[in-house]
């Protein structure tokens, strides 16, 4: 059954673990303006398969804008983005999603009127094929499809250890758990690349540790490539393979955590802001 196939994918079968692979996502000379305001200026960097890639920078450095360009929320005025060899002037959200790029949000962007289960289920919608009529009748194939995807979603709920809240409306959950659900919704898309926008913002130490564990587990278990935004340098440095540093919409550093730590410009930017 189709469900079991996707389960395999989830379990990362045949994913050679942590073998950093070829460049999967390549960002070339992206520039983005709102009216007169320059949000991003000529940003370029690449992401290799299976790696954990961090984008750090002080608040307002343009980190989120960068993600928004990658998954087509914003249309950059200049530059191009190459994903698995295909180059795009600017991305279209649905296309990006289809190509296997998922994303979580800095400010919680869950569907507050829906339960944890339904929120994560929405992540499966791209893969649900039955048309309106089938869904209205909800018999045979339609029901089977629904159940198969429910099965996958349950794997994710299990993975994120939120079984106890499955049927709870997300609005009622504490912040830390909502962040997990957000991650779950992204995972439900079985992404090849996962964009995380400050996954640990506003969390206490404990929650941060949990989140770190989940992120690493995702990378381990499913071989998912991870692009991670943080403005808190400390957390990122331990978990990421390579780091891009943005400041005022410009790239001021790129390399392994150690290289970046050593980079004088980065130090300046961070001494300038208290982080």
């Amino acid at each position, binding site marked *: 059954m189709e469900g079991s196939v996707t389960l395999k994918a989830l379990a*990362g079968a045949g994913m050679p*673990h942590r073998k950093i692979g070829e460049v999967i996502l390549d960002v070339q000379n992206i520039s983005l303006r709102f009216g007169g305001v320059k949000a991003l200026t000529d940003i370029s960097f690449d992401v290799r398969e299976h790696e954990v890639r961090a984008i750090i920078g002080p608040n307002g450095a343009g980190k989120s804008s960068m993600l928004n360009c990658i998954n087509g929320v914003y249309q950059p005025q200049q530059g191009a983005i190459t994903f698995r060899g295909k180059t795009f002037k600017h991305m279209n959200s649905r296309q990006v999603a289809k190509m296997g790029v998922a994303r979580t949000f800095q400010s919680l962007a869950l569907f507050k009127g829906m339960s944890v289960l339904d929120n994560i289920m929405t992540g499966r919608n791209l893969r649900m094929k039955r048309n309106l009529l089938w869904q209205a009748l909800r018999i045979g194939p339609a029901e089977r499809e629904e159940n198969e995807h*429910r099965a996958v979603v349950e794997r994710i709920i*299990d*993975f994120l250890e939120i*079984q*106890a809240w499955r049927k709870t409306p997300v609005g009622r959950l504490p912040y830390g758990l909502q962040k997990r659900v957000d991650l779950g919704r992204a995972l439900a898309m079985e992404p090849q690349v996962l964009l995380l926008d400050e996954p640990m913002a506003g969390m206490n130490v404990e929650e941060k540790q949990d989140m770190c564990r989940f992120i690493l*587990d995702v990378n*381990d*278990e499913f071989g998912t490539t991870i692009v991670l935004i943080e403005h808190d340098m400390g957390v990122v440095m331990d978990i990421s393979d390579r780091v891009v540093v943005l400041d005022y919409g410009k790239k001021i550093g790129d390399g392994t955590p150690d290289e970046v730590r050593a980079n004088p410009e980065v130090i300046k930017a961070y001494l300038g802001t208290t982080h």
Partner: protein
Amino acid sequence: MTTTFPRLLLEHAAKRPEAPALREKEYGIWQSLAWAPLATLVRHLACGLAAAGLGRGQHIAVIGANRPRLYASMLAAQSLGAIPVPLYQDAAATEFTFPINNAEVAFAIVEDQEQVDKLVEVREQCPQLASIWYDDPRGLRNYNEPGLAALDALLAAGQAHDAANPTLFADSVAAGRPEDVAALFFTSGTTGQPKGVVHTHATLTDRAQAGASFDRLTHDEEVLAYLPPAWIGQNIFSYAQWLVCGYVVNCPESSATVTIDMKEIGPTYYFAPPSVFEGLLTSVTIRMEDASAPKRWLYQRFMDVARRIGPARMDGKAVGLADRLLYGLGNLLVYAPLRNSLGLSRVRVAYTAGEAIGPDLFTFYRSLGINLKQLYGSTETAVFVCLQPDNEVRADTVGVPIDGVEIKLADSGEILVRSAGLLKGYYKNPAATAEVLDADGWYHTGDAGFIEAGGHLKIIDRAKDVGRMADGAMFAPKYIENKLKFFPYIKEAVAFGDRRERVCVFVNIDFSAVGNWAERRNLPYAGYTDLAQKPEVYQLIGDCVEKVNADLAADERLSGSQVSRFLLLHKELDADDGELTRTNKVRRGHIGEKYRVLVDALYGGLDHQYIETQVKFEDGRSGMVAADLKIADAKTFSHARRAA
């Protein structure tokens, strides 16, 4: 009952192949495993283990929460004549070294990464530990420990091996004999190293069967397995009796969801130590405090009704029509909904054991209409020694010896047990075995007690604490102290009387309880010492003591140890002053020394005694507390008069 667990499994698989054997809530629904598929699973696991070299008589550690595949692994091991050794999953890594080495364990099947990590940690000290299989591969993808593999791999290997040797499984099950060792349970000894209790298929199945027939258990029971399988209590209920009766064992989704799962399953046969019941009650009280005033009123009102009528009803005694209607109403409004939200609606039989349960706690559940009963037994006796028959349930006894059990009282008052369910001995520890098993096959429980009129066994104390009065009457200080402490006004009590002609008691009042009582009577007081010395308070406590005496008098063995005199201490007994152990048990001897003047005053017949005591305050400073303590006589009863 002469069979083995693997044979029982195969019988069920043959008789009721489709019927569910195990249910586990996983991925949001209750996934059932029927008897036939379970048998196949066990068969393949067994073949896998055989291929891996597990042989007859060898030990294999099983570590993890209640998971179907772990239970299956135990069965698989037993099918090969090997001996599963369940270990506590929440134990620290270092606690594993002794049992693993003691039972020279070379194989282990564990639940998940957490357990694997612990075993890997102790591998230095346990070189013989060759292979470890894990049920849940999460996080273990890049471990490259030698001999570490997933249970799935074992399963696959097993299928291959089974195909190659189709008769292997059947043969080795057939070769198993009831008197073979079935399992090894390590009891965490209070002192020294843990001891491995050896049980055979015969001992376990015999007791399981006896217990089952006592409560007429059928294969329709639903059981929720949520306590550590390494504890014989859980093991007998969710393994031995499971295979004997063929009912369904349900495994919760995760430790965080037990209450939810309990509510969904609604077990019909339930077992828990008093602590669990206490926790439940606490949660009920707390949640009720947040309830709206009318609800709280309703609850209080009907819980009173329940306490009045419930127990009698449960014991099948006749209850007046008005009361029956009232209780029915309460049942509709409070009891039934409460049972529902506790997940106890469908309970037919529930047991508590392990330690003494407070009468209030006990009656709370009884009065709700839950058939909660007590049983007496231990790891060494394969649990079932005494059980309370329906309608003969009392808070202060542990029931009647069930069939197959002989009970004898040693002169010391210690309870001796003989049954087909006794341990074969402690593993590689003949000395310890000799201590508890005598030549005629009596097991020395270490508990002191006696058979009451009506044949109910009554546990009064640990045997070593029981003393003798000057006139030779039995003196069980802890028993008396506990009886006193069941009163809310009494926080601590210390009873003296060993080798004396009468019993005298120090009492610590419960400051808050007695304080409230005093305020309700607007009785002014200046602090603990002052309150304790109020004549009214002496009256109050005197009544409690009198009640206890009345109880004691009811029993000819104990009527001799009624409390004749008592005093209220001027300070609370405190661990900082060395009067209590860190676990808040009274250090009787030490207190007797420290307050010798008071003891002498009690026995010297004085009616008051001045005393000064040094105390340590919270901030570490120390100071003196001085008071002139009154000493009161308590009303005692003669046994005959109560009997009449």
